[in-house]
């Protein structure tokens, strides 16, 4: 499974880039992206339970199964307005 992961705000800063491409085993869930990236993106540690995930520009639950070519996004706590 090849997917793109978009990064924003503090997570983007912590990763040092605004996007990553991941090669994942079949059946990987959206929530597992965070496990995979924990070492590469230190900011995820402190935010883990407050992060939302989006796939194809819609919020998804952590158990959402990823598909080939998906564009996922890690959404840190939002602060628009």
């Amino acid at each position: 499974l090849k997917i793109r992961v978009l990064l924003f705000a503090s997570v983007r800063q912590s990763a040092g880039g605004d996007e990553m491409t991941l090669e994942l085993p079949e059946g990987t869930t959206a929530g597992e992206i965070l496990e995979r990236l924990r070492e590469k993106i230190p900011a995820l540690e402190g935010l883990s339970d407050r992060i939302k995930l989006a796939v194809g520009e819609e919020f998804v639950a952590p158990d959402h199964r990823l598909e080939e070519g998906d564009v996922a996004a890690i959404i840190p706590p939002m602060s628009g307005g």
Partner: protein
Amino acid sequence: MIRIRQEPLDVGAITRSVEEPGCGAVATFVGVVRDHNAGRRVKMVRYEAYESMALKKLEEVARILVERFGVHRVALEHRLGNLRVGEASVVLAVSSAHREEAFRAVREGMDILKSTVPIWKREFFADGEDAWVGE
């Protein structure tokens, strides 16, 4: 109109855009950059967004307000980039037959926006430090 832009928001134009002969009420909420937060002096703020998704989510906010409160028209614009103290970051205008649903719609609309629209604010303080709001 629903949009995200780098340029200053025109509160008057956004408000006028929701006027309608059948509407006796127009309510506009303007979010403005404040000069302090949690006891620190704010010099500037910078907004960034997951733009394509944020636009979809702003459109969803407008749709919810029409469905839930029966408001006639909704205009919602959010600014991105660097903003100085006093500048408008968001403008939400609604029109309805009577004032009650207009008041409720702007309040609820801003609550939904804050929890569902992927936009982030970074505050730059007078002491040279900065922080992402909400973390």
